[in-house]
């Protein structure tokens, strides 16, 4: 097989609960500042969990001038357009007439398209005496909204993003629950290695902080109910952890052919060096206690990158702060690293940002790029009490200044899809 094409990360963009752009997010993650607070998107005071990691003081109009396009955009689509715009500006390139066919797009997108008020309208017009009668939709009073319908389509976000940024090559939207963002970036890497694109805008976006989304996770008992101490609620790997905190946001990377990026003198954050992707095939709701599944994903990511565990200096864990995920993931990390487990720092930035579901893997990939640039392994906040089942080298107390040669970013999805991405420090890339 011929040498694998190298892919550079040349731009990052973030809209997260700890900052509406990449610099603010990264500054807050380094000091372990939490973005978790009481939910303000809607009145959640009746729910068992009333806290979340929301995007604050965000205005799409300041980023996207096209008002007509914004009408078609949901909350998470707005985050995506802002993060995509920041990533392109950061990279200093964008699709141009002449190369738009060589630009790809890959997104991990949310699972929910229908807004709560739209469901309420259907309920009001179609449900009588507890019976659903579809003929209510034909009622002239029914507020039929074609724009809302378009917004609800599974690829609505991708359609708006490709239109806004003008990319006309390969375009895909994927959804494997919490692994979506990581798998989207992994797909982008493969698409570039196959030669189907020279540039890809890759990332993820999600917002389930609405009555239906919050309900879904409350029903499963997956969320922390520490409503009185929101900033401490997400504490991955801590012995007292009791569930994850639901977040929202978006993250995007600009991926570019390595040689082309070098040639134009672009700032290169890192090489996106490898993608690992596996299925646990264990149980729909549980992860395997041995770490089976994530182990294969991490091994594949390293193999795809031409790396070994010796080259890994930091792991950005999935680390949701649920009892089972953190235990299973630590077992996987221990299995991967073997005797080196004490050497390699591990942290979960979900301790500050909460869990951004389909956006999580993409946001955390951007965090890894920033971590490599600045030589900082960000702190795993809120870790107080060690859990013997989570015996890895956690970045406790404060962030660690250290050169990061190679980094792994894990995203482990509900239902068993696992994604692991490998990044390499640009100076570690052998010159050809």
């Amino acid at each position, binding site marked *: 097989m011929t040498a694998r094409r190298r892919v550079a990360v040349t731009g990052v963009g973030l809209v997260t609960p700890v900052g509406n752009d990449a610099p603010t997010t990264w500054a807050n993650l380094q000091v372990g500042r939490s973005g978790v607070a009481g939910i303000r998107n*809607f*009145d959640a005071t*009746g*729910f*068992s969990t009333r806290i979340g990691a929301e995007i604050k003081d965000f205005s799409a109009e300041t980023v996207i001038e096209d008002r007509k396009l914004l009408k078609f955009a949901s909350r998470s689509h707005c985050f995506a357009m802002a993060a995509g715009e920041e990533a392109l500006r950061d990279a200093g390139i964008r699709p141009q007439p002449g190369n738009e066919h060589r630009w790809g797009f890959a997104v991990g997108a949310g*699972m929910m398209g*229908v807004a709560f008020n739209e*469901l*309420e309208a*259907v309920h009001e017009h179609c*449900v009588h005496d*507890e019976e659903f009668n*579809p*003929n209510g*939709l*034909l009622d002239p009073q029914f507020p*039929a909204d*074609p724009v809302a319908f378009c917004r609800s*389509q*599974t*690829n*609505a976000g*991708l*359609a*708006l993003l*490709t*239109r806004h*940024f003008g*990319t*006309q*090559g390969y*375009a*895909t939207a*994927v*959804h*494997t*629950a919490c692994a979506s963002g990581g*798998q989207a970036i992994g797909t982008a890497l*493969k698409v570039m290695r*196959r030669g*189907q694109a020279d540039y890809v805008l890759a990332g993820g976006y999600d917002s389930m902080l609405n*009555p*239906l989304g919050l*309900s*879904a*996770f*409350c*029903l*499963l008992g997956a969320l922390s109910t520490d409503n009185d101490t929101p900033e401490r609620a997400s504490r991955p790997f801590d012995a007292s952890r009791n569930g994850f905190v639901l977040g929202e946001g978006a993250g995007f990377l600009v991926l570019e052919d390595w040689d082309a990026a070098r040639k134009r003198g672009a700032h290169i954050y890192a090489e996106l060096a490898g993608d690992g*992707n*596996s*299925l646990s*095939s264990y149980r*729909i*709701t549980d992860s395997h206690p041995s770490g089976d599944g994530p182990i*294969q994903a991490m091994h*594949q990511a390293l193999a795809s990158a031409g790396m070994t565990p010796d080259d890994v200096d930091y792991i950005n864990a999935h680390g949701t702060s649920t009892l089972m995920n953190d235990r299973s993931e630590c077992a996987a990390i221990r299995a991967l690293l073997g005797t080196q487990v004490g050497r390699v720092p591990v942290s979960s930035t979900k301790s500050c940002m909460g869990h951004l579901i389909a956006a999580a893997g993409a946001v955390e990939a951007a965090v890894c790029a920033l971590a490599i640039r600045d030589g900082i392994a960000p702190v795993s906040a809120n870790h107080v009490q060690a859990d013997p089942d989570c015996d890895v080298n956690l970045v406790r107390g404060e962030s660690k200044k250290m050169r990061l040669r190679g980094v792994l970013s894990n995203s482990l999805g509900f*239902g*068993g*899809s696992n994604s692991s991405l490998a990044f390499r420090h640009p100076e570690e890339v052998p010159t050809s």
Partner: protein
Amino acid sequence: MSESRGIVITGAGAVCGAGLGVDAIWGAIINGRSAISEIRSWDASRWPARMAAEVTGVDNRTLVEDRKLHKLISRTDLFGLYAAGVAIQNSGILSHRETLAEDAVAPFNDLCGVFAGSGGGNYRSNYDFFPLLTAAGGDIRRFGAELGENVNPMWLLKILPNNVVCHVGIRHNFKGTNACITNQCVGGAMAVAEAAAAVRSGEADRAVAVGHDCPLEPETVFHYDRLGLMSHDTLKPFDGTRQGTIFGEGAASVMLETRRDAERRHARVLGEFLGSGCTTEATGVLNIRSDGDGLSRAIQLALADASISPADVGMVVAHGNGTPASDASEARALTSVFGSDIPPVTGFKWAYGHLIAASGMLDLVVTLKALETNIVPGIATLNELDPGLGLLPVSRMPQPPRSNIALVLCRGFGGMNVALLVRANRGSTAP
């Protein structure tokens, strides 16, 4: 393309309104039988758009035997699990696995990929919240407080777009690379393209690709009709009087592996996957270009991927969804690629409707039968070719293909276009 990593199809499964199983569906098409009739799943007698190709007379347990699973997944997932199960079973890969040495099984499973094109969220599952909305009477606090008494605690599982990926993995112990593509209509077609790419690159030694969808529900029909996309009688691709599309439901699936592996285990080869192309026109959710630019680029990319020229293509299975704009631009794309030398063109949606995320995959599975039998089936609902579409070689009657290579086209919201190229198995038909 390197011969060593040539990709073949060794299993296929499908269910849709036109039948349960690939042979039943093929029989309907070749006999000119359309499954489109008045909607039966709700009283649509007052609806202007009230036609569909529904799956009727198929028990859920025929689709998925495990009854416990029925409560945890949606109708679309039942279709997907059925089709994928048949493709995997028919490929003989499971009985082959039984012959492996004990320590070879885990590495084998780690190289079994699963790729789904999923319709994603549906409206129906949200209706599980109606009793709660009634109980809450518009009070969001009560909605939150009485949640647990009114909604199944496992509700989230029902709406997961990636259910088929998860359950195919669990049921068959496939643990390799995977994707669930939620790119609306082109999801299924992209799933097979990604599965083939994974096998070609060696990320997987074999992969199942499945497309499944169930767009047939009141809100979807209602909104599509309001947007002017639905036909109120029949689906007539490329006909001068075509009005729009009509929904179907179901799933289709293929099992892909390398030719080398398939030959080594003497598997029955249904066809060879040659290449794919994927583009977007970047026109937003609903708009498409009238010149067919995105589609012609997708076809050119697929031809280049397969290292063949337009003259090598023996038949075209068009997207042909029956909407005036899509069919017209599709004809233009074919003209721009093939010039005046367009191979015989057909389409199958007149028989089983538009299955949205499953459409491209179902078309592909039926195309394998067309290649096997060396027949380009006629479009039974075609009365008169739209004179605006030039000399598009479509027919009401079956046509002979001009080679054993077929081009399958799939288009969707967001200006998405996918082109797939498949060839009849070597020796089965003269090129």
